[in-house]
């Protein structure tokens, strides 16, 4: 293709984005749009998959059968959400194996929140309430993202995810209405998860390298800071109902702006965890890689069986 032809295609593409048209896998797209989508969708998929790990540990320890079936269903949804997203990314020409390889080698990132440990049962409640709550805010904004397969996966995920947050909140509500010790456990979990949850929206806009282009291409529909503010404004009244205190002395209602002001986020901690030095980065990747490697023979055996069955069928016909 000549330079002029590419320029022409780029103009047509930008015009389609401006008209809010969806881009589908076989449509022409700038290479950078393709790459940004692969990066964002695959990281989102990795987050769903790694996100199962902190919760998986609690399935056998859930305090009742009701809690156990709910947690199992939630973790199963997360596996499903990972699969929807990997499929969406695959339409852009990257293979599933390539994405796994990027995750396992550390080349691709996943949400840093999953590098924190889930040490008490109250953490299951808090993860559902805050982590899934933050994820929902991100994902609702992404339902109108410009790449068709990603937007469709998001719509499905959003529909399924609201139970995740409600089951978490219900766990906390039960603890907060229980004994002093149970309420203290809920408070402790909030203390540990509040700031990492705010970090889930990513660096502040001024320091987010991808935001500007992603907004222009309607890959992202709201900025990190907008989404973070929305999360805080929505979550503070929910903490009040629980009767536990958000660990931020600077948090207060700003009547003029009609939103909450909040304290400084510890961005050094954020970058430490992103770079691999969080409390559980190594543990999470080890668990993920060993699951993949130890499952290798099963995948090979299933493939060999399918091929054998296929050959047998051909022979029978012949």
């Amino acid at each position, binding site marked *: 293709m000549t330079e002029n032809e590419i320029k022409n295609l780029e103009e047509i593409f930008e015009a389609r984005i401006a008209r809010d048209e969806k881009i589908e896998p076989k449509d022409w797209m700038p290479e950078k749009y393709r790459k940004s989508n692969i990066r964002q969708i695959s990281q989102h998929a990795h987050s769903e998959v790694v996100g199962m790990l902190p919760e998986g540990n609690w399935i056998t320890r859930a305090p009742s059968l009701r809690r156990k079936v709910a947690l199992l269903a939630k973790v199963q949804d997360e596996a499903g959400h990972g699969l929807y997203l990997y499929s969406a990314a695959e339409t852009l020409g990257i293979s599933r194996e390539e994405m796994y390889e990027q995750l396992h080698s550390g080349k691709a990132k996943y949400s840093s929140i999953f590098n924190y440990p889930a040490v008490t049962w109250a953490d299951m409640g808090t993860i559902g309430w805050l982590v899934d709550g933050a994820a929902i805010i991100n994902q609702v904004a992404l339902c109108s993202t410009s790449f068709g397969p990603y937007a469709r996966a998001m719509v499905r995920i959003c529909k399924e995810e609201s139970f995740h947050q409600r089951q978490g909140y219900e766990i906390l509500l039960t603890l907060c209405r229980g004994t002093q010790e149970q309420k203290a456990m809920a408070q402790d979990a909030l203390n540990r998860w509040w700031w990492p949850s705010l970090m889930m929206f990513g660096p502040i806009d001024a320091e987010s390298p991808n935001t500007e282009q992603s907004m222009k291409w309607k890959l992202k529909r709201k900025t990190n800071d907008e989404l973070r503010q929305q999360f805080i404004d929505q979550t503070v009244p929910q903490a009040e109902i629980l009767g536990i205190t958000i660990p931020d002395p600077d948090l207060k209602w700003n009547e003029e702006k009609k939103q909450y002001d909040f304290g400084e986020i510890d961005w050094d901690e954020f970058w430490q965890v992103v770079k691999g030095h969080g409390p559980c980065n190594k543990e999470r990747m080890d668990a993920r890689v060993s699951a993949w490697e130890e499952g290798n023979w099963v*995948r*090979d055996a*299933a493939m060999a069986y399918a091929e054998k069955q296929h050959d047998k069928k051909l022979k029978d016909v012949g």
Partner: protein
Amino acid sequence: MKKDWPLWEVFVRSKNGLEHRHFGSLHATDAVMALENARDVYTRRNEGVSIWVVESKYITASNPSENGELFEPAKSKVYRHPTFYKLPDELKHM
């Protein structure tokens, strides 16, 4: 002998009376596994009463860069639409 599992496209009929609609894709070694996985991945909340799976490589798709030749000729054929025909107002329900 390292072989990746092939990709399958999943179509689900949400209830009798409706057509099967494309729901997404997944990897499986054969058709039986593809159906089983499709059930777990795409119908966890009663989304369907019937599933079709087909290996993605068997789907032939039109190329968007040829959309002009393929679809534009239909645009000028307005006589294929009922509103092309001018009939008196007295004539109801036609």
